[in-house]
């Protein structure tokens, strides 16, 4: 009955909102622009609409259902399942990102890589919240309240987290793509070949920056789709424990990306307010080239100090800011597990400039020169400144109804 359905939908909405609110609280603790992020959340609730429209259209016009056509020609249920989950992943990851891209394109919403990641998390949360309303409703109607409790818990925690993780990766790479101009330049100074970027640039007649941007977005989308499909596939095989481990590891990787210093840099440049460098461009390029060399040689402390001095002369140089941030990230990474590794594999210490400055001799002891026959050594600059009882259930191709209402994303 319409009234009961309406009431049930309202109740589903309330239930779905509880975990969404908890996740929002967790995410908002780390963010500053809460107002705009709330608007993004509200807007992204409607991002499920294209997904449901697509499902409806494929049901009404099955002749356009590519998946059905493929299923009829392929006998292996596993392959059909994989195709299904990949196609679901493609559609859902793209629609989750559409709102962010649209708003960013119009209002220059995203100023840092981290913001791109955070806005993507918010968008995913809105999508997941809307999706959960329909799932809660249909599970209650079809399976009753007992099944609903377990499904509700699982969807609130793991499925929502999964949505956040998949969109987070896409958002992270979108952020990198957005600031590809600075990153491509930094890669140049680091001596990275970027062969695929150059190839795409030549083939499609686009700039290296544009080529890098497109490839990075594709990379992010690819990662999100693979993670999404893997999640669904593991769930299909009833490998709940594996699913949980998978999500935890993916979330840990995403958290690590969120903590990177380079992610917090404001890489948007306002040309009107940008300060000019007090150093000649040619001289500055010599120093930046040296930064690249010493970064490759893992002289991160020296890189940071040089960046600090250079930023006093050219404060708005984004490439130098990136070098400083990345060197800081490397040192942080090294301090944690690096110390453990160094104890196991002790290395000859590379002297830093600061150490040399401290060792600058105050006294000059005169030592008689002794004839030595030291071997000739010519220093070369190092190029580096890297069952069958527990057999899982056989996967079966999901029915059209199951595609929508199964316990997965």
């Amino acid at each position, binding site marked *: 009955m319409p009234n009961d359905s309406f009431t049930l939908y309202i109740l589903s909405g309330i239930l779905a909102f509880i975990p969404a609110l908890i996740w929002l609280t967790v995410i908002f603790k780390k963010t500053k622009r809460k107002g705009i992020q709330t608007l993004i959340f509200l807007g992204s609730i409607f991002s499920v609409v294209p997904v449901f429209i697509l499902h409806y259209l494929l049901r009404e016009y099955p002749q356009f259902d590519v998946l059905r056509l493929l299923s009829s020609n392929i006998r292996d249920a596993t392959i059909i399942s994989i195709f299904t989950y990949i196609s679901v992943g493609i559609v859902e990851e793209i629609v989750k990102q559409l709102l962010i891209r649209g708003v960013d394109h119009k209002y220059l919403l995203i100023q840092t890589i981290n913001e791109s990641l955070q806005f993507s998390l918010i968008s995913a949360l809105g999508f997941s919240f809307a999706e959960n309303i329909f799932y809660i409703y249909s599970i209650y109607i079809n399976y009753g309240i007992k099944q609903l409790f377990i499904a509700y818990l699982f969807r609130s925690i793991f499925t929502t987290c999964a949505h956040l993780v998949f969109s987070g990766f896409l958002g992270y790479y979108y952020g990198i793509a957005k600031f590809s101009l600075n990153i491509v330049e930094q890669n140049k100074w680091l001596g990275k070949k970027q062969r695929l970027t150059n190839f795409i640039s030549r083939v499609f007649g686009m700039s290296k920056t544009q080529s890098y941007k497109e490839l990075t977005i594709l990379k992010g989308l690819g990662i999100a789709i693979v993670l999404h499909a893997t999640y669904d596939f593991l769930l299909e095989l009833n490998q709940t424990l594996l699913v949980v481990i998978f999500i935890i590891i993916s979330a840990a990787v995403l958290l690590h990306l969120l903590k990177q210093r380079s992610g917090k840099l404001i890489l948007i440049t306002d040309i009107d307010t940008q300060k000019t460098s007090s150093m000649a461009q040619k001289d500055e390029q010599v120093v930046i080239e040296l930064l690249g060399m010493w970064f490759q040689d893992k002289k991160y402390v020296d890189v940071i100090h040089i960046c600090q001095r250079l930023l006093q002369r050219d404060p708005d140089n984004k490439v130098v800011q990136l070098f400083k941030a990345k060197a800081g990230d490397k040192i942080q990474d090294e301090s944690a597990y690096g110390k453990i590794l160094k104890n196991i594999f002790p290395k000859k210490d590379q002297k830093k400039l600061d150490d040399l400055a401290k060792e600058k001799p105050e*006294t*000059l002891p005169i*030592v008689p020169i002794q004839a030595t026959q030291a071997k000739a050594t010519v*220093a070369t600059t190092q190029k580096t400144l890297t069952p069958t009882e527990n057999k899982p259930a056989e996967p079966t191709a999901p029915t059209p109804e199951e595609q929508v209402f199964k316990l997965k994303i």
Partner: protein
Amino acid sequence: MTQSNITIEDIPATTQGQVAKLVKFQGQLDESNVDEKAKIIYALIEQVPQNLYLLFDFEELEYMNSKSIGYLTDWYGKITEGHGKIVIAKSKNNILDILQVVGLTQLINCYTTTDEAKFALLQPSTPA
């Protein structure tokens, strides 16, 4: 290959045991010639591994690339390990700028005249 030249002259030392040299750089040090030219200094360091005092005259040095700065840092390390010293004289402003940003001016004193540089090079440092 870009033109560059390095000439080495003896400087009369004031203290027994010191070996002091005036190393004059001319032209530009870039990717095409820096490795070859660096060998000259390394050969000198190998020849005199202890108490080597070098005065680098940069008056006619127009350009240093990043690799040559890396070499300069390495020379400083090797010479000071052997209780020697390096000073720089008459560096052009742009090169001095680069050395200052890189931080090398904290290690290697730079002087505007050769006489000042010679005096600083050969003067024994006061004990701490």
